[in-house]
């Protein structure tokens, strides 16, 4: 479970990038995070993962405060950043080993998970190449693999499906479903409304740093008393008028 309480964030020259955000992401559900470009999705996620300092408010992951119990909190989530261009001078296998060392995964488990996951994602043959030579989608897959080998309770994914081929996207969606069904937390941002509609149990919509909607599909219908598609709803909620 992720609890975001009264969180605000300012950037130099950009006040209120996030303004008094309250959001609880429950266990056992897939929660989609929507919003126009620049709405504050990545900023929120970066505060959740300890990358950005929180100006005001608090965020806890399974009860661990990301600022006060940073190490404990960081051990229980896996994060896929929106731009996967990291560690380009390492080989794929070296990156996975590095992650394995940090999360202290025993060698045998590591070996088995790396092999099955990378074969599923069809990047096994590229493991001995530098990440620099990977395509965008391959880079994303290696980072997703890195998350999966330490099998964290909470998944935090920033636009994980952008750039994946249909087969890999399908696989990742299946994995997300499975993971949530086991009672874990899955939180991901996306611009793909169909995906969100088809996959998510709950939807949170943010615009200009403020949460403007949070609820399940049932609540969407109730609140708007219509059979509006998510697309229509999204456009209506985020329009400037």
């Amino acid at each position: 479970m992720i609890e975001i309480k009264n969180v605000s964030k300012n950037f130099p020259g950009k006040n209120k990038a996030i303004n008094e955000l309250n959001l609880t992401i429950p266990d056992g559900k897939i929660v989609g995070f929507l919003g126009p470009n620049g709405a504050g999705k990545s900023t929120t996620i970066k505060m959740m993962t300890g990358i950005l300092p929180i100006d005001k408010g608090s965020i806890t992951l399974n009860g661990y405060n990301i600022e006060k119990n940073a190490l404990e909190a960081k051990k229980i989530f896996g994060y896929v950043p929106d731009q996967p261009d990291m560690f380009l001078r390492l080989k794929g296998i070296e990156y996975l080993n590095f992650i394995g060392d940090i999360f202290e995964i025993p060698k045998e488990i590591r070996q088995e998970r790396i092999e099955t996951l990378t074969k599923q994602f069809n990047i096994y043959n590229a493991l001995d190449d530098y990440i620099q030579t990977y395509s965008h989608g391959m880079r994303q897959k290696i980072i997703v693999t890195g998350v999966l080998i330490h099998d964290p309770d909470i998944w935090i994914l920033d636009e994980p499906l952008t750039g994946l081929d249909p087969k890999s996207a399908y696989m990742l969606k299946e994995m997300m479903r499975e993971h949530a069904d086991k009672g874990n937390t899955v939180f991901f941002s996306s611009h793909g409304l169909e995906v969100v509609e088809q996959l998510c149990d709950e939807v949170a919509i943010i615009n200009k740093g403020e949460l403007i909607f949070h609820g399940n599909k049932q609540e969407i219908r109730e609140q708007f008393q219509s059979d509006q598609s998510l697309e229509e709803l999204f456009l209506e909620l985020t329009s400037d008028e």
Partner: protein
Amino acid sequence: MSKTWVVMKTMLKMQYSKAGKSNSQIWLYVIAGLFFVPLLFFYIGIINNLVEALYNVLQPLGQDSLILGLLFLGIHMLLFLISFITVLSAFYFAEDIESFIPFPLHSYQVLLGKAANPFLYLYLTASAVFLPAFFFYGAISGANILYYLYGIIMFVLLPIIPFTIAAILLMLVMRFVNIAKNKDRSKVIAGIFSLAFIILINVLVRLNTNSGDLINNLAVFVQEKDGLLRMITSYYPPAFFSTMGLTEASSFSGFLFLLAVIVISAAAFFLFIWLGQLLYLKGVLGIGAGNKRKSSQKKIKKQIAARPVWLSYMLKELRIIFRTPTFFMQCVVQSLFGPVFLLIILMLDSGDLTGFMNMFSKKESMLILFIATSVLVGSNAASISSISREGKSWPANLFLPLDPKQIFFSKIAAAWSLNLIVIALVLAICVFLFQLPMDMILIWLILILITSWLSSILGTYLDLLQPKLNWTDEQEVFKTRFIGLIALIIQVGIFGVLVLILWNIDAIQGLYTSSFVLFIVIVIATFVMSKLLSKKIKQNEHQHI
């Protein structure tokens, strides 16, 4: 032409952008400025005196043109060396070219855009070296307005010729090296080649100046007016034409010489454009960055191994340094360049170095050895790039469950272990060439190993104060940052004073006592420095960058 201008401006902006930099560390620049201003006055004073003294000696002999001749020769040489380094980095190390290729630009426009940064450096150097001497000479010789007019024109043209020579040389070499079809490897080879080239030039100059003919020739050349000028510029017409243009500024022949300079510069410019399109653009595109191999399943299984976190992290740091050409050049090759260079000069001058240090007492030898090696260790770029090297990978340090202390420890350890290479080299020199006594070598080794740790902390600390993470090209981590200089000034400043004091206090005698004092001070400094760093980490400073 306006498009060319836009390309040049954009390329410069990308390199000197202030995006993401906080203004809170302005004091770093203030300190650098405080060091700089008195030096500037001192420097201008020296130039003035030098020009005046030379003029007073040479003018009665009718050889005053020699001053300008030397000036032009010297500035061309200097600009050549700077071109060499900046062209290498701008044309071959920087990766910004790829973002310009898709635009509808002529290749000469891209080429000129790339040349913008080297030229900026060249003009800065030329203003610092050429302009003061030029004005002082004009004042002393009572030159007329044409002298100044011609001089300004020549100043504008000054960088073109040395730049073209350096660029063409490099483009030829790179064309040859690129046969390897591997960008990373070619970069490293070219980098090492150019350092070797600088050493070679030095060796050649040293070998030539020893010849006895010089005196005989001198006597002949002094006889005629401007004879010395002719002698020193006989191999290099641009310097001769430039000088004559200025000294004869008042007559028509001066104008002809100026014309010659303009024509040669223009020719050089077009030669650069022509050869650049031919050699550079065709060569630099289409070289693969990494090497792709098929991997066997067995090999991958073998590569999976569990390591302690600190080791795994340090290994990652070292891998990245050794695999990134810019980092490899800055952090490994360049730190070796100093000792190798010094060694070659020493060998040339005295041949046999056994007992070279015998002229000093044991205490003095130790102090010399210590301060010299702490300069080497302190100038290593690995520590001052500890954080900046990460670039876009930095957030991973924040979202992975890593203890910040662990991160910094591993980074410092990586910088420290790179220093081991230099230390090993100096150790070999001490044992085999200088043949220093064993106890001295051992004590020095202990001292320098701790000092190396100290300077690794210091550099990392400074980098933490103002890291450069938003680079698009590794070059930016080192360029346009004074941090390396500041780290060196702090460390060498402190130890320099300490060594001077120890050297002059007669109460502290002998190898052991003086080494012990050094040891105590280094340990205390290391302790203080690591406390300072821990404090910054406790304040979560690493998250706020």
